[in-house]
């Protein structure tokens, strides 16, 4: 490519809609490293080239200026930004102290119907294996 277009690229990435449980196939259009749009995936076993308006616009929230880009520590809605590693240490310390002082069942974990199977599995592993409690659920009923 000529110099002026060195960073230029267009590609599409096959994935699944993040909204409802239908699981429609979609392609994310990526221009120069940014998501620019959505195309319905042709030949998908569920949706075969169709989407609803939510699917068609699923990329719009991704680049919202409201996205969290830093870890926050705070109380009563007053937050200050902290480094990621520091935030992780704070969480692990609090978890350890709670288990030591009150037992594993004083901890609870809420996984997510929005996250992947892999992430939900790890949340369950964190609760059951690392901490030692079965207090794990998500909003399956809503």
């Amino acid at each position, binding site marked *: *490519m*000529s110099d*002026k*277009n060195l960073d*230029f*690229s*267009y*590609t*599409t*990435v*096959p994935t699944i809609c993040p909204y409802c449980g239908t699981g429609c196939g979609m*392609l994310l*259009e990526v*221009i*120069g490293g940014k998501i*620019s*749009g959505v*195309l*319905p*995936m*042709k*030949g*998908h076993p569920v*949706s075969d*080239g*169709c*989407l*609803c*308006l939510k*699917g*068609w616009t699923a990329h719009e929230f991704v680049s919202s200026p409201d996205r969290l880009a830093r870890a926050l520590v705070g109380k009563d809605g007053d937050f200050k930004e902290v480094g990621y590693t520091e935030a992780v240490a704070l969480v692990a310390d609090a978890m350890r102290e709670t288990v030591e002082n009150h037992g594993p069942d004083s901890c609870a974990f809420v996984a997510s119907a929005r996250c992947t199977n892999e992430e939900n599995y790890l949340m369950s592993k964190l609760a059951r294996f690392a901490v030692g409690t079965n207090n794990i659920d998500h909003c399956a009923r809503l």
Partner: protein
Amino acid sequence: MSIREKARQLFAEGVDGVLAFKRTDGVCIPHLFTKTEVEEICKDVPADQRYPVAGIVRRIFLSGLAGKIGVVARGCDERALIELGKQGQIDFDLLSIIGVACSEEQARYCECSKPYPSRIDVGSRFEGISVSEKVRAVESMEGDERLAYWLAQFASCLKCMGCRNICPVCYCVECSLEDENLVRRGSVPPDWPVFHLLRAVDMASRCIDCGLCEESCPSGIPLRTLYKKATEIVKELFDYEPGADMTQRSPLGTIGDQSELPGGAFEA
């Protein structure tokens, strides 16, 4: 010639990228290939996995690419590119087309009257279908029956906006389908027939008959049949075909003293 050979030739002539298809995990996805990626270009253009190539070209240019690109295009894709070029949406001179002729089977499925681009690099030419059986079938209905047929179709609309979103020649920043004075917000189905007729009127002088709208409709509304008829009317009245060549101007875009309707001349 194969798509890859032609792409190599275009890179040698100085294009900066080639928009074609890439096979990955059993599907074909649109991708802008660089010179070093030529071997990954899908050898054929998959019949059942068509994408709005011209719309993608428009978005690529819109995002700031200043170079030249090659693009794998069927007959309908080329018509869309011409239409976008005429309407100032893309610079047609920056494009080199790798022309792909559609198979007879594809042409029959589409009832396409011109299933090949102006120059064919890949595939062999099948002459096309001059009369759409689907349009004739709807036309053969009595007036009331035909109205009932379309109203029932429109009533099934789920307002996904897929017909507009996938359309390679739809590009308005402000879309009349989002004008609250014309179409109420938030209701399923959207107000009909106004929603669908607004689009049909828009398509009458623009539709290049790719049929992607109908393929993306979850309700299975026969939009292609509707727009084929709309463009037929424009062809009859004005002898105008969207996307046919760069010189013809859209009669609906240029109502003036040059345009005549059967009832008499319009004054500018």
